[in-house]
């Protein structure tokens, strides 16, 4: 059974008299342990889909089953608790809390779990050394470079050991070397820690890091390419099937 199952997933916004449908009857299955890249023109619904999978938004129609649970049916507060347990989110603009140090930023999501101070400390230390920033634990975000901020944000996303990591243009604001470092890190999360990764990107080179790329247009999957990781070999299947297995 796939980890994530989208069935006829739609999102509708009212705009004045009419409506906008950034997602339109989307069917998609994602197996556990996948690294999936989402591409598509601006406004095609990439962030919308990512937010639905991350439990940050709720679909207007359709079912979204993650780990056997239809999260479309959860109440707002249940959904918040679900997010804390199951998803780590990496943002384009890092979204670190400016008044908290790198350590405290990474510790934040752990406060939502029943852990002792010592257990939290161990986890934060592990996460920070994983992203190579153990020595920067007492730095505030303003004292870090963009690439370092993003790595702290990645540490924050994985510190609770969630099954799923979603990233919305995680390298969109970074220069090439920093972007490369961040992507290497995300790949390691996928290959070494077996995290299921879903990443939105505009950049085909960045999408190369993923083992599969899906293309969205006007809220629908138009094609998808399966890449044997880093081999550059691409296969295309019919869009309606949209299964990432």
């Amino acid at each position, binding site marked *: 059974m796939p980890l994530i199952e989208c069935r006829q997933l739609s999102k509708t916004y009212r705009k004045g008299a009419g409506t906008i449908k950034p997602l339109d009857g989307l069917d998609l299955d994602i197996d556990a342990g996948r690294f999936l890249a989402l591409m598509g023109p601006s406004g095609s619904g990439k*962030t*919308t889909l990512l*937010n639905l999978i*991350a439990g*940050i*938004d709720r679909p207007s129609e359709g079912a979204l089953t993650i780990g056997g649970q239809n999260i479309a049916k959860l109440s707002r*507060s249940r959904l*918040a*608790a*679900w*997010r*804390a*347990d199951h998803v780590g*989110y990496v*943002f384009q603009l890092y*979204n670190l*809390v*400016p*008044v*908290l140090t790198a350590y*405290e930023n990474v*510790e*934040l*999501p752990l*406060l*939502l779990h029943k852990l002792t101070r010592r257990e939290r400390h161990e986890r934060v230390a592990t996460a920070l050394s994983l992203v190579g920033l153990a020595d920067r634990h007492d730095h505030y975000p303003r004292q870090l470079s963009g690439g370092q901020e993003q790595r702290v944000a990645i540490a*924050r996303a994985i510190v609770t050991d969630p099954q799923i990591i979603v990233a919305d243009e995680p390298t969109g604001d970074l220069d090439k070397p920093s972007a490369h470092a961040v992507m290497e890190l995300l790949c390691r999360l996928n290959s070494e820690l077996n995290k299921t990764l879903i990443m939105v990107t505009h950049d085909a080179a960045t999408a190369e890091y993923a083992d599969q790329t899906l293309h969205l247009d006007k809220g629908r999957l138009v094609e998808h390419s399966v890449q044997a990781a880093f081999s550059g070999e691409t296969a295309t299947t019919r869009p309606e099937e949209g299964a990432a297995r």
Partner: protein
Amino acid sequence: MRNLPFEYAARNLGRSPLRLMISVVGSVLVVVLATSAFAFVRAMDRSLTGSASEDNVILLGAGSEESIERSEISASVASQAQASVFGIRSEAGKAFVSPEVHAALGVALGPDAEPAGQAVFRGMTPAAFAVHPQVRLTKGRAPNTGADEVIVGALAPTRLGVDDERLSVGESIWVDGRALTIVGRFAAPNTVMDAEVWVPLTSIQTLTRREGVSCVVLTLDEGEFADVDLFVKSRVDLELAAIPEADYYDQLNAFYRPVKMMVWITAVLIGIGGLLGGLNTMYAAFASRVREVGTLQSLGFPRRAVVLSFVQESLLASAAGAVIGALICLLLLDGVSVRFSMGAFGLLLDGPTVGFGIAAGVALGLIGAVPPTLRCLRLPVAEALKAT
């Protein structure tokens, strides 16, 4: 559980020093205002209710029940009441019956000087000390019957707006060009008498060219108010009214209710102004954190955690202001006396008053934080994450 760390609230205070200052100053302002208003109203209440003695009944002219100063009755009422009313208290052969003249008179500080101000003069006999046990001589002696001597209450200088020194024992004051020597000082804390000048009954009768008195105050022992009332009704010819002293001052207190209302309304209006100003800066400060709050929610923090943290932050600022405000009040307001038409009273700055002021400041911090926080949380998480 599932709360944001306290450090987040504390460090958020430092994000905008200007806003922090406005919050603290606003809280100081509110605390000072609330404390002053409460101290004023409570002191006024206390001076009017404290003026009455439980067992006292006032006899005054029928039709002048609201104002002793306007009442005029025969000087013989005192002896007739003493003879006819059952159950008047007495000690060592002296009955607790005090004939008094109450008159507001201009007081000058020299023979030809203009009056410096008005004080309430009470023409009295030694019996006045018996029926008004709140009064204690603090310096000197009581005035001699028939002499042009006075004793001066502790707050009378405030009432007249002159230095306390100027009214020391041995000094003189002038009323209508006539010199009165100060032979004593008295205190009657928390009563209207504290701001009065006491003068022998015969001297004030000469001074104000009257033969009668304003009222007679009786202290009852075994007697009841009905006994006094019976006397009043049986002696219609004397044209008297009887009123328990407590009722008289209650009625006076009611008369000053609009003044107290004005004080409260002014304090509340200025407080609301402060609140709106504070809200404005809070809205601005919290509006810049929309994306951050969206991020916190995306991590799984419930909205409640954000509200709690922002309220904590606001409370820290307002509590700091409240402490400063309370200190300012204790330094500046303690011992301050206020004049009003009845005399003067010292502001009442005790635990409950200061506590009320601090509570007002802190409550405002609490109320002031909630609407901006809810505003900040208004957007769904997905939209909040797009905010700049």
